[in-house]
């Protein structure tokens, strides 16, 4: 029978990937820029972490390179959308292609290699708590714990600090912020960069931490897009996004587990006896994403919550109206 604790732990691990990417994109979008290139930045980060770690033998350098790589890629998007005022959707898509292409080319030949990975850790005192300690604090990757910390830090920053206030104002009403002396351009550049760095970190989490290895584009296989969907579904709230990420992680593990045992709930396990049915299980995360979007949109209409008001709209000072 499937082990709930194991599913939970697996969910925490793989969910951390989605958490980093989603929270990063939330920060970018709260400042008013939509960066759909998350998948590309993640793949690029995954490749960069793996390659750098492989070449230097030092996984921490790999992490650093991944973070910077994601950030630099996002700056290209920032330049085009903030200064050149290009359409943010198209630019984000082109960034996906760009990031994926770079990852595939520069990552050539890495498939099948191994490299050092970020170690697992057990937190001393907390791991002694019955059940919770074993699930949440024992023998999990360091990045998972960093993921835990990221949630309150992100929430606090966005809602309870002055820079967070300025950022939110830039996302809601950039003209208002501009007339009060907030530098709209610089703010958006900064938070796009932060989002890119976190996407790179998310990619690194895959390739050198949670699911080590480089498998060309299969490394991310769409998780970047699920992260973008999570941003919408969570109403731009980091805590909800993280929870959604963990749930998706658990789902992945669950569908994997369903394939294993010969007997399921006292009946013949169809997935065990007909391996081809496994494909339907693999569809589930993607189908569920669509369902989540549906559910999120109707909830939003009920509660009258929406995206940051100026999301996707380029800002330019002093546009003379007709």
């Amino acid at each position, binding site marked *: 029978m499937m082990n709930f604790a194991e599913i939970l732990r697996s969910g925490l691990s793989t969910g951390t990937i989605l958490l980093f990417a989603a929270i990063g994109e939330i920060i970018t979008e709260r400042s008013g820029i939509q960066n759909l290139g998350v998948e590309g930045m993640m793949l690029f980060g995954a490749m960069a972490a793996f390659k750098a770690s492989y070449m230097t033998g030092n996984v921490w350098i790999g992490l650093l390179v991944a973070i910077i790589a994601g950030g630099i890629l996002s700056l290209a998007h920032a330049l085009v959308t903030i200064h050149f005022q290009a359409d943010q959707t198209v630019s984000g898509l082109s960034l996906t292609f760009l990031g994926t292409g770079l990852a595939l080319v520069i990552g050539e030949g890495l498939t099948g290699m191994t490299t050092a990975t970020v170690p697992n850790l057990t937190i001393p005192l907390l791991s002694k708590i019955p059940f919770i300690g074993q699930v949440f604090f024992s023998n999990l990757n360091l990045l998972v714990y960093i993921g835990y910390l990221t949630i309150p830090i992100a929430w606090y920053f966005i809602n309870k600090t002055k820079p967070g206030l300025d950022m939110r104002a830039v996302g*809601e*009403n950039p003209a208002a912020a501009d*007339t009060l002396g907030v530098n709209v351009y610089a703010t958006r550049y900064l938070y796009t960069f932060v989002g890119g760095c976190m996407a790179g970190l998310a990619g690194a989490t895959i390739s050198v931490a949670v699911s080590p290895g480089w498998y060309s584009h299969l490394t991310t296989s769409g998780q970047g897009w699920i992260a973008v969907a999570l941003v919408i579904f969570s109403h731009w709230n980091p805590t909800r996004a993280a929870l959604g990420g963990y749930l998706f992680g658990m789902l992945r593990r669950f569908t994997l587990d369903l394939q294993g045992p010969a007997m399921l709930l006292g009946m013949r396990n169809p997935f065990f006896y007909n391996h081809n049915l496994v494909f339907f299980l693999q569809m589930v995360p993607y189908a569920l994403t669509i369902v989540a979007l549906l559910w999120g949109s109707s909830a939003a209409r009920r509660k009258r919550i929406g995206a940051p008001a100026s999301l996707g709209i380029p800002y330019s000072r002093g546009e003379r109206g007709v």
Partner: protein
Amino acid sequence: MSYLEPKADSATVEPVVELRDIVLRFPGVLANDHVNFKMYPGEIHALLGENGAGKSSLMNVLIGLYRPTSGQIIINGEAVSFNSPKDAIAKGVGMVHQHFMLVQNQTVTENIILGLDQPRFFLNLKKYDEEVRQLAESVGVNIDPTAKIWQLSVGEQQRVEILKILYRGAQILIMDEPTAVLAPQEAEELMETLRGMARQGKSIAFISHKLNEVRAVADRLTILRRGQATAEGVPVEGMSREQLATLMVGREVIFNQRRSDKEPGEVILKLENVSALNNKNLPALHNINLELRQGEILGIAGVAGNGQSELVECVTGLRSCQGKIILNGENIANKSPRFSIAQGLSHIPEDRIGVGSAPNLSITKNVIMKNYREKPISKHWQLDYKAAKTHAEGLKSSYDIIAPNVETQARKLSGGNLQKLILARELSSVPQIVVAMQPTRGLDVGAIEGVQELLIGRRDEGCAILLVSEELDELMRLSDRIAVMYEGEIVGIMEDEDADIQTIGLMMTGSLRMDGKEDLPGHNLLQKEPETEAPADEKAESQPPLAMADPIEPEEAPLQEPLQTFIDDAKTAQEETLASEDPKNFKQEVNERIEKFFDSIEEQDVEEKPAKPDLPERPLTEAEEKERVLRKVLGDKYPEDGEK
């Protein structure tokens, strides 16, 4: 008489702000052409001009939003150069924009401290809430710092904007068309606040295109026309309305009535118990009943935001509603715009860029937006662009749309020409009914007259026109009947000859209702005991506007009593008239009361005296008509001895 040099006596005091020889050039436009502007401490200086004259641009230079192409900015004797609004704020200059720059889903305090260096990192809102509260009290403004902006009324939001700049230590305040969104009585409140701040030594620049307002509150004037100053720092005293208007537009402005002399025809549009929600899912329209007849212009008056937009959207099929909207016998409520368009309904929208046109498409493609499926422009599924082009060229010349050719993209057209394009499209189809919302907003005087003539022309041909406008002058000039909207309801409908600005103004602020409904909470303010001191946590709109709450200076107190009496009188009049069931009489009564009231005010020698309303007893000639309107508007400043 030269208007370009201020009198010698002002040279003894140093100007607090001087804009010297400012030239501001944009691609293709010379916004400011060697303009000079000076302000002294404690004065209210009005900047007057039509739309597009360059007033906002000039002030945007002063607040650091635009860099002048040449010229100097001198503040307190020191030449300064602003790289951004932050620099201007640092020098004590602040602007309250016409379109508020507020973040809707953040609180008052959060909006006020936005962009400041303090607090550095951690947000301790409680401390700042307290500071904002104290600041508000010190200038007599009533506001809850923890309220979110979307919860506040328009007048309150404006006060937040004022607090925003005061908090930053502004000594120089610029108000950009501040009364555009306020009812006459709210505007009066604002004037009081401004006068109070001027008395505290602040200098206030007041941008407006409304002559009466300017004459009511300003000390000195600067008038801009097409980027140049036609009057610089001229004292307001002694300038007649005609002189000002001429300086503004360069030619005589005619105030004549254009009411139709024909009898209106059949009822073509009928609204029955129409209710609707606005975009925030709050009630915007409440049981609207309205009739529109052929050959008449029905004007809808009201402060922006009282349901006019929603009303227009319901009639034109862009918003769902309850109730019935019957056009030519068909109920068009909740049906797509296609239905009403097919029934001959034309719609001139409020937002000509966002709704009325497709910016990147050519004039041709814009003009055929509604009739592209008809012959000869279309044959079955095919679109004949040649025929469309010919059609467009015809309209371009007959409506005098100025553009290189019909392939020009719509976004390149100026406001006036874009409006002409929209009118060409909407009126050339010979509609049965036209719904026009703010058709002359943002246009210069020539264009405004053109638009109004077109509408009148259609009306005279039998078209029914529903005209929504924020310009009372325009409504009174064109409408055969005027309905006033307040908080989503029609609070009064009058034939134009019975309408006067005071009554309409009272209705617009909910102080007066013609339908005699007395049981709706918060609506009939004549019922409530007027409060002289409003409790701190009550929203502004529930205060009777006529009771001056939170007086800034003790000198204002004496006004309270006569107002009280007036309110009691009006209340009595209403009760009496309702008993007699004669609405027309009611108006007469009210007018008499108003006259009495203002007479009594006169005896107390108060500064401000609005015109005495008078009802003509016989049909007037045009000259008399003109005189009557001038009298009404100018009040006691109307030159009695025949000098014009």
